[in-house]
């Protein structure tokens, strides 16, 4: 076997192993974290976005199917479930702060969710998008499994909704802080709550990594807006006759 053949056979072996894809994913994220800490220049340069770009570049460069990558990376993906459940613990620790703000929380989640749905509809119509894309866009602010279920219910395209939802999360995580600084919202609870409401898990992850109070309020907003949106979107579709 020549050296080249030996390298090739190692590469073939590695591609089939979860270890390679797990190492790549964590490495890309750490690189993103490093670049983010060093630059802090541009909001799009956050650790998740950079990590995603690095991994995607590797896959495209070597012509790897996403399914093959995900077969390895699914072990990281699996942890999303337990991580979601474990949000109960910081929420429990800050329970007094949450009950003290109960009225503001409930009002904001209701009006904020209505706003998110209506602005999405108005913009989608303004950009003259097709009806099935409009329907796929409506539930985009909430966590992907809820959004996909709602999309299916109202006649959207669930897989398209999944993509739209993730992009919403990344944009919320990337530009949320910047927007809130611009509007001079200083209260950590209000900052986190707005990010969780409008950009679900990815926004919550970002809030949690910056401030615990913001993270807890983001998690509460994500859960509540998920439920409210699941009920509101079908009602809006019916009332507006979309």
């Amino acid at each position, binding site marked *: 076997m020549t050296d080249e053949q030996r390298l090739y056979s190692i590469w073939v072996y590695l591609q089939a192993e979860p270890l390679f894809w797990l190492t790549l994913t964590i490495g890309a994220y750490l690189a993103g974290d490093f670049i983010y800490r060093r630059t802090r220049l541009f909001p799009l340069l956050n*650790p*998740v976005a950079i990590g995603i770009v690095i991994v995607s570049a590797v896959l495209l460069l070597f012509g790897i199917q996403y399914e093959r990558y995900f077969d390895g990376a699914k072990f990281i*993906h699996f942890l999303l479930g337990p991580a979601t*459940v*474990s949000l109960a613990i910081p929420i*429990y620790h800050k329970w007094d702060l949450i009950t003290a703000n109960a009225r503001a929380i409930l009002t904001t989640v209701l009006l904020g969710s209505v706003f998110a749905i209506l602005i999405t509809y108005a913009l989608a119509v303004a950009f003259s998008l097709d009806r099935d894309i409009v329907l796929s866009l409506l539930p985009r602010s909430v966590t992907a499994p*809820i959004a996909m279920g709602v999309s299916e219910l109202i006649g959207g395209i669930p897989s398209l909704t999944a993509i739209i939802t993730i*992009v919403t999360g990344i944009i919320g995580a990337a530009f949320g802080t910047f927007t809130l600084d611009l509007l001079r919202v200083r209260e950590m609870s209000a900052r986190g709550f707005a990010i969780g409401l409008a950009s679900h898990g990815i926004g919550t992850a970002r809030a949690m990594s910056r401030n615990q109070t913001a993270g807890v309020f983001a998690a509460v907003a994500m859960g509540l807006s*998920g439920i409210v949106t699941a009920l509101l979107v079908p009602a809006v579709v019916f009332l507006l006759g979309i």
Partner: protein
Amino acid sequence: MLQGVFIIFLFQLIGEMVQKYFDLTIPGPVIGLVLLLLALLLVDKRFRSLGDRFEKGLDTTSATLLGHLPLLFVPIGVGVVMHISALEGHLLAVLGVIFIGTVSSIGVSALLMQTLQLRGKRND
């Protein structure tokens, strides 16, 4: 730590089962979150503490999982990049809707929440 992992997995499992059984749109882990929170609040109210071992176990496990929460979104994020062609000619319009919609929703919700909080404080 192992107790913490066990409790969290157990509640996710219960959540997934509830979701499947009642065929709900709310995902299993979110149901698990709500049930675990209720359990913690109930135990807390009844015994005034969770017991050191469980409390520590849950705290370390959740801190570990939540410490690098953004990392867990990289695999699906890559999926979006690889499948972005599904948006075909509508890419820019859809991105525009998402960008303006998300940023304005964050702004409106934050300002509303802050106003309500300040008013609540003044009334106290």
